[in-house]
């Protein structure tokens, strides 16, 4: 598991062909996810301070340039979601109680879960904002 890639490939292996590049992109999604998580951590930090400090941070977060960043991060986050769901059948046991679980079922369940989580969070935040 911890075995590094063949050093003879150099560090530019991901530019060699499309499937390497897709693997690189899949792994690189974590940089954007980590960045959004750290921004969220700071939002929580500012929420614990006075209104002025919090709003200054929120204005930074909602600055047009940051919005561009969030759009790019959203694209990478969705790429993570799709690629992670699609490889899940390879990581999970293919049989439960002796019966085969079709890969399409596992993938479908995950997208159903995504829809449910997205809808619930969306409605909750909208409800808090509207009341």
């Amino acid at each position, binding site marked *: *598991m*911890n075995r*590094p*890639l063949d*050093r003879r490939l*150099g*560090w530019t*292996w991901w530019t060699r062909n499309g499937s390497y590049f897709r693997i*690189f992109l899949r*792994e*690189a*999604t*974590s*940089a954007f*996810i*980590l960045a*959004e*998580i*750290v*921004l*969220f*951590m700071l*939002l*929580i*930090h500012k*929420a*614990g301070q006075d*209104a002025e400090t*919090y*709003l200054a941070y*929120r204005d930074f*977060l*909602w600055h*047009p340039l*940051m*919005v561009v960043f*969030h*759009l790019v*991060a*959203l694209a990478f*986050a*969705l790429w*993570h*979601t799709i690629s*992670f*769901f699609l490889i899940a059948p390879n*990581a999970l046991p293919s049989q439960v109680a002796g019966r085969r679980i079709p890969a399409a079922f596992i993938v479908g369940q*995950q997208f159903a*879960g*995504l829809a449910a*989580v*997205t809808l619930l*969070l*969306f409605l909750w*935040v*909208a409800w*808090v*904002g*509207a009341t």
Partner: protein
Amino acid sequence: MSGRSHEPLFWSLFAAGGVLAALFVPVFILVSSLLGPFGWDWFADAFAYEGVRDLLEHGLVRAAVGAVVALIAVHACHRLRHLAVDLHAPLPGTLISLVAYGGAAAVAVLTAVFLALV
């Protein structure tokens, strides 16, 4: 290879964080950072000062946010660690691991502290 490795532990945390990131991060970016600036008032109000404190008011919400943030941080740092190794970063492997998992631990602990202070 040695008989014992911490890899399985990190891998299971990585997988849990991966699922949570897949489920929560897209909608989180959407509601917190895009719908408000694009002019949807409900989401602008939800992330006004009072709104965000209402969102984080309930203890269960804070506990869930802390756990989700911690696991996603472990996931992202684990992946970045492997990516750094695979890109042949000219640094000792232990240093890369230390920075990656130390960073994840720092995010988890700081988020817990910040949540307690809201």
